[in-house]
């Protein structure tokens, strides 16, 4: 035992996409406050395996907050109570001994559950494939310093590009809207001179795909911005709206 926290976990278990799921209660003991939330899950899974039960499936990979794989809805918030972090960076010192923690998968029609806490976020990839790029084939580029870009624009673009595609915005939005995600990509490219050529098509096509995937629409509650582990700004959604309206006015 490496620590002294005892917790009660209530975790969504669902065998497969088609099966019905339910919350199952698991007590965990001897948790160290220095553990990450996922390391606490490792401890629980090891226990389950040793008992001959099935471990809990959850997405995770880099465990340093950048790959965007981890996705747990913890006590009613995506990535848990701490601001600006992903689940893998959430540490147990954010909880108290004796706490009950409810863990659910992202809930959205566009993110169907695959198993337990694992959901399918391929919808995001399909949206990017519709326009989240600049069409420049390898070898076409001019010298990188040929187009000076004001630092403020480059920084704003970077801030939008910092999105890790985890889907916390969708998970927390009361409408399961993906607008923060989509707008971050549209903004990143709209802010750069390289992104101007395909501006109109990008806004139209990405929004169309977003709607087709079955995400809800934005009612500006601002929850996504608060829960985003990379603190992507709502300004991006406004920028996307502008881009989209202008695109439709022009063509």
């Amino acid at each position: 035992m490496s620590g002294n926290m005892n917790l009660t976990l209530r975790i969504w278990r669902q065998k497969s996409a088609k099966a019905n799921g339910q919350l199952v209660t698991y007590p965990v003991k001897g948790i160290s406050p220095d553990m990450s939330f996922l390391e606490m899950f490792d401890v629980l899974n090891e226990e389950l395996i040793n008992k001959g039960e099935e471990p809990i499936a959850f997405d995770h990979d880099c465990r340093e907050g950048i790959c965007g794989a981890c996705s747990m809805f913890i006590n009613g918030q995506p990535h848990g109570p701490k601001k600006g972090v992903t689940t893998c960076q959430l540490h147990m010192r954010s909880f108290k001994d004796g706490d009950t923690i409810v863990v659910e998968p992202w809930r959205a029609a566009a993110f169907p559950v695959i198993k337990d806490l694992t959901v399918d976020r391929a919808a995001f990839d399909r949206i990017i494939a519709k326009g989240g790029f600049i069409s420049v084939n390898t070898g076409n580029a001019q010298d990188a310093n040929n187009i000076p870009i004001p630092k403020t624009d480059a920084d704003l673009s970077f801030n939008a590009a910092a999105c890790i595609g985890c889907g916390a915005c969708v998970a927390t939005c009361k409408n399961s809207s993906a607008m923060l995600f989509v707008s971050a990509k549209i903004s990143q490219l709209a802010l750069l001179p390289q992104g101007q050529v395909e501006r109109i098509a990008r806004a139209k096509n990405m929004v169309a795909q977003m709607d087709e995937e079955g995400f809800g629409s934005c009612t500006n509650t601002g929850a996504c911005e608060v829960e985003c582990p990379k603190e992507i700004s709502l300004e991006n959604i406004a920028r996307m709206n502008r881009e989209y309206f202008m695109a439709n006015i022009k063509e």
Partner: protein
Amino acid sequence: MSTNQANFLQSSLGKKLIMGLTGLFLISFLVVHAFINSLIFFNDGGVLFNEGSEFMAHNPVIRVIEIVLFIGIILHIVQALILTLQNNKARPVKYAVNNGKANSKWYSRSMGLLGTLLLIFLIIHLKHFWVVSRFTDEITSGEETMYGEMKEVFENPLIVITYVLGVISLGYHLLHGFQSAFQTLGLNHPKYTPFIKALGFWFSIIISLVFAAMPIALYMGWVK
């Protein structure tokens, strides 16, 4: 081109745009409405107020705008209904625990509910005054004035309470709606948005106070 526009208006963003634009339009109506209402506070036995309502009732331009206003309200409601249905469909399985207050205001999450309350209130309100002013003989024939009608209606404390509750719903609806409309229109800028938010906040409070003051003042007999 035409299918393009149809796509635009049917897209999530297009619908939001309609919500935002109609919302702002309705807000502008509220300003006029509140202005005329506050004429009663001249405490001149409703003379100015009656002149104002007379003008609103008979000016042909206003009658046209009135039609536009109703279209605006209906569009606002219909779009809201469609969006709400779609948004509900976007999350078929709900969370067991959802700690919304950690990341957003309750009234931002409850625009549908507030809007429904407002609609109920609006129907009551229209029945009390608009129907009377347009479709009954008393006022058009000059037997009765709007001011008199109002005094009569607000003698009933239950109606006064209903109005105050309706106006509270309106206040919260605006508290979110005002700044939200600007965001929807794409008007978000680090320099100006704090001003818009502050304006929206004070607008919501002042407009609600003005509307609430009237039934209360009449009931209490503060204005004669």
